[in-house]
Each structure stands twice: as structure tokens, then as C-alpha cells.
């Protein structure tokens, strides 16, 4: 069964500092990988996705993520955080095939940005 672990429940950074949110997955093969962001009272918005190819993927709002097969990780990064990035971030995995396709989400990491 596929699973996702986001080890950090809550992270606080200062505005302008760099950010890395961790995501580890468990799956028998290389899954499809996603990062979503959820602002308070809002639904989930897709930041970026990895299907295949270049292991460093660029997303919206200046975010990027790197897929590392050897570590089963898909960490999200941003070089300089803005106050508007304060939100909850979810990593998700899904199988690349199958009629019973299902996304599995991690428990999320809450990001607080200090001025």
C-alpha cells in the first residue's frame, strides 16, 4: 500500500529565509508525486507535480521540488519565503497506472512565516 510521511507538523521561518519541507513516500515503484498548498478556509491548490524525467521540477509561486529515488523523497523548497506563503502544505502520491487510481496524502506541514 502506498503511504506518505511528512515528518514536520509545523515549521516556522522568517520572511526572506529559505524553506525546505520534507516528504517521504512508500510505494513499490516510482509513483506520481504532488505538492498541494491549502490556505486557511480554502481548498487545495496544486504547486507542482512529478511524473517522470527531470528529477527537479519547478512549480508555481517560486517553489521547486526534487525527486530522489534512493531516498524515496520528494522535498519541497523555496529560496526566499514571503509572508503570503504561510499555509499548510500537503505531499501526495498516486500510482502511475491502474483502474482504481487513488491519491494518498500526507498529514501536512503547517508553515508559519515571521515578519
Amino acid at each position: 500500500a502506498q503511504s506518505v510521511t511528512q515528518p514536520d507538523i509545523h515549521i516556522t521561518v522568517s520572511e526572506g529565509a529559505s524553506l525546505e519541507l520534507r516528504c517521504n513516500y512508500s510505494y513499490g515503484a516510482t509513483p506520481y508525486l504532488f505538492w498541494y498548498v491549502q490556505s486557511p478556509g480554502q481548498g487545495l491548490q496544486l504547486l507542482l507535480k512529478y511524473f517522470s524525467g527531470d528529477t527537479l521540477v519547478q512549480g508555481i509561486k517560486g517553489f521547486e521540488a526534487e525527486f530522489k529515488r534512493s531516498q524515496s523523497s520528494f522535498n519541497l523548497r523555496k529560496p526566499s519565503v514571503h509572508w503570503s506563503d504561510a499555509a499548510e502544505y500537503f505531499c501526495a502520491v498516486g500510482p502511475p497506472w491502474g483502474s482504481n487510481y487513488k491519491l494518498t496524502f500526507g498529514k501536512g506541514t503547517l508553515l508559519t512565516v515571521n515578519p
Partner: protein
Amino acid sequence: EAGVAQSPRYKIIEKRQSVAFWCNPISGHATLYWYQQILGQGPKLLIQFQNNGVVDDSQLPKDRFSAERLKGVDSTLKIQPAKLEDSAVYLCASSSLSGGGSDIQYFGAGTRLSVL
């Protein structure tokens, strides 16, 4: 392009009452998902429709939850009777393809349910 619409945004009910949520997906999207997001957790899939057929409802508590998508467009999710542990945000998502691996899911803002 209009996004996924959900209503109501908030609902407060007492336990053992019934409640219904409505979702209108992005126009033309064949696949529709209902998720339950309990506070402090990631979304958990309850049911997936492709057009008006059910693809996966393995995690839907069928003794109290029901969902339908009669004309393959909008959908309703019902809880009857509600329990305290049903307090959560109910998210609807839709995708354009068949629900396969490369499909991107677009989420609505959700309905926050409080059961007292």
C-alpha cells in the same frame, strides 16, 4: 474557467441529524472525488465517480454516508445520521481525464461540518 463549486461553506448540526453537501465540478470534467479532511490530517478519499458511475467507494462508511452523481455532472454527498466524528471539512475535486496517474485534481473550497 470557473473552478469547483461547493455549498454550503459551513454547516453546524447536532448528532443524529442529516446533512447534504453539493458539488459542481469544472465543466467537462469526467471524474469527481469527495474527500474527508479531519483537523490535523490530510484529505482521505471517500468516493470517486467517473461520469455517473462509482469507481471507488471502499472508504465510504456506507451505513451512514451516501453519494450520487445522477447526470454525470454535479454531485451530492449525504450523511444520515451524523456522528460527532464526522466533524471535518468535506472537499470535492474534479479532473478531466479518466482518473489515471497523470490526472490533475482541482479542489473546491470545501464544506466545514461541525457536529455537536
